[in-house]
């Protein structure tokens, strides 16, 4: 099937070249034969998660542009990467169709798609069509447990998040001499929220960690009113709130906590979006101060990060490279690196190269990207970030820290003069 497609594509290609040559003459002939390698970015740029989807696409695109600016894939004669753009609309059906489309258009590798459900559909299709698939962001463990040969994941899996969370909390509690914390865990009722929340709770229980969970509250994704939930949180009188949220409800949560005067030592997310986006800080201002989040973050001390982030901020004013766009960028770098080493665009060669990846980078926190047998990046790591001075700063682990963490919160939300 693939043979037929290649032949057909080749025939179409030559016909096109022939036609354009006939019409436009020699310069066109030269241009049409410049080597080009197509890869595809599939992200949910419309639909309920489109704010993150667009961030991902920008990360993918910028990496492609940067690689091309530096000379493209040198082992293939300086071939430029061309990024085919796909919109999964956050639906599995569309994700599959878009994946089929970009494969037909000649993509030799796919990157994406943020949502784990979409990722499953694309991964299965890539296995069927034998096309390599690199997940820049997708957290559900299940995907790499199905024995897929063609799927790789750059992002850490949720057990990794939970491990780190406990490590960081242990350090904070030890250093601040807090022997026990009474906490409430909340999460959005979607796949990511549920998995994060459940994994965190599971680890707390298994490791018999000194965080007592007073309550676990879930609310529907897309909820517009959290007053009931916060009333319940207040009634439980916790020391710390551990919220797994999304960009919409994170704001609601903070405002409700303010309005209902919920006394807290801290707000520490086990790992979720909603707390580090520039719009969140801009909208919340002083209220965002001292919120902590355990996320696979960009490496603030990294040379690569600083350079890319500056340009990202120039291209998209008001935005900075965060977890999602950072990993999207990294995903493409990993693919390019594999292409360099594979010296070919054949699927099996690319997969072989990906398996042997050892990509040193200081774009995101964590070591060199390297995949285990299941395709997971074993050096993927998360860091504890905190909003200090209305900017996101890495506070743990110390070796990557930009600032010392602040715990407990010195001022309650309503004492900040807002």
């Amino acid at each position: 099937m693939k043979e037929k497609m290649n032949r057909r594509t080749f025939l179409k290609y030559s016909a096109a070249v022939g036609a354009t040559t006939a019409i436009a003459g020699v310069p066109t002939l030269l241009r049409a034969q410049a080597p080009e390698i197509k890869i595809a970015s599939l992200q949910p740029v419309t639909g309920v998660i489109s704010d993150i989807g667009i961030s991902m696409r920008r990360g993918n695109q910028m990496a492609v542009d940067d690689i091309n600016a530096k000379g493209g894939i040198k082992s293939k004669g300086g071939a430029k990467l061309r990024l085919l753009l796909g919109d999964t609309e956050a639906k599995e059906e569309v994700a599959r169709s878009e994946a089929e489309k970009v494969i037909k258009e000649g993509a030799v590798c796919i990157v994406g798609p943020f949502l784990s459900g979409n990722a499953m559909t694309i991964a299965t299709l890539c296995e069927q069509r034998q096309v390599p698939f690199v997940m820049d962001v997708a957290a559900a463990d299940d995907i790499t447990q199905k024995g897929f040969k063609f799927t790789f994941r750059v992002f850490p899996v949720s057990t990794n998040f939970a491990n780190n969370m406990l490590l960081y909390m242990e350090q904070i509690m030890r250093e601040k001499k807090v022997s026990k914390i009474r906490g409430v865990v909340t999460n959005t009722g979607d796949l990511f929220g549920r998995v994060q929340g459940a994994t965190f709770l599971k680890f707390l229980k298994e490791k018999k960690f000194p965080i007592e969970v007073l309550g676990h509250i879930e609310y529907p994704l897309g909820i517009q009113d959290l007053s009931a939930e916060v009333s319940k949180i207040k009634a439980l009188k916790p020391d710390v709130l551990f919220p797994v949220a999304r960009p919409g409800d994170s704001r609601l949560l903070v405002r409700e906590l303010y309005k209902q005067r919920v006394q807290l030592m801290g707000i520490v997310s086990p790992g979720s979006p909603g707390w580090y986006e520039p719009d969140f800080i801009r909208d919340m201002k002083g209220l965002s101060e001292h919120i902590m989040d355990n996320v696979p973050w960009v490496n603030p001390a990294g040379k690569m990060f600083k350079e890319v982030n500056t340009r990202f901020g120039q291209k998209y004013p008001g935005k900075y490279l965060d977890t999602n766009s950072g990993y999207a960028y990294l995903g493409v770098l990993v693919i390019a690196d594999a292409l360099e080493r594979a010296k070919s665009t054949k699927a099996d060669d690319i997969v072989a190269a990906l398996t042997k990846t050892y990509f040193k980078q200081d774009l995101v926190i964590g070591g060199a990207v390297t995949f285990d047998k299941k395709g997971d990046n074993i050096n993927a790591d998360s860091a504890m970030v905190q909003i200090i001075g209305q900017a996101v700063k890495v506070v743990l682990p110390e070796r990557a820290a930009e600032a010392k963490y602040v715990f407990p919160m010195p001022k309650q939300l309503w004492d900040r003069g807002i």
Partner: protein
Amino acid sequence: MNVNLLIQLGISGFLLGGVYSLIALGLSLIFGVMRVINFAHGEMMVWGMYVAYTLLLWTGIDPFFSFLVSAAVLFFFGYLLQRTIVNRILDFPEAMQVLPLVGMAMVFENSARIIWGPDYLSPQSRFSLSSVSFGFLTIDTPRLLAFSLAVIITLLVLLFLKKTDMGKSIRAAADNRTGALLVGTDVNKIYAICFGIGAACVGAAGGLLVPIMPLSPYIGAPFTLISFIIVILGGMGSLTGAMVGGLIIGVAESIGPELITNLFHGVGLDLDFPQTMKQVVSFFILIVIMLLRPQGLLGGKKG
């Protein structure tokens, strides 16, 4: 059973219910007069939110004033929509009426996305953080304001329909379209104004909600559904019914899960009714009403 919590939840839900009432009022007008299921209702509300947001951003005017502009803009959209599309589908079979409005819902939703981007927006406005405390109760100021303004608007609309000539014409056209035509009423214009008012209601409600909820292009759909539940609960054709229905649903969604959980525990069942299932409460109420009293609580004739 935590009575304090229940009271807190109840009041919070009641206040939000006031805004729901306003949204449902818009729908009740449209459905009551033209028999059209406005599937774009929620999405139109979101536009109202965005208009108020934009004004806040550009001029600093608080949404509790600029909701009037939202209402005006949406009136214009509604009028236009009725004259161009809705008017043509009035006599279509019901199923055919659904589609154009579903299409318009997509248009509203995605054009909002193109214009304002996909990010959740939650600007700080003057009252967004204030609250009033009475002992154990905390009352959310934005909610209180939204409730009060929503009630005022609803009463104004009701007055308009009862006392003004235009209002009477609208009610006449609702009751008897052929009759109205025979008497020489410009039914098309009446319908357009009616749709416009319905849209204005929902636009105003949107403006009032800006200090309360984060904005995104995709939050409209659940509101369409809720307004339908409220309209049926209150009684189709009864505008006061929409008001009452809104308050009931607001409270039900807020305290329902907590009450039911207490009920379960009370009879020895170790089961929690999660907040994530709060919509089940509203749908359940809807089914019961439709089966036992289809004309709704305050509806007169059978819809």
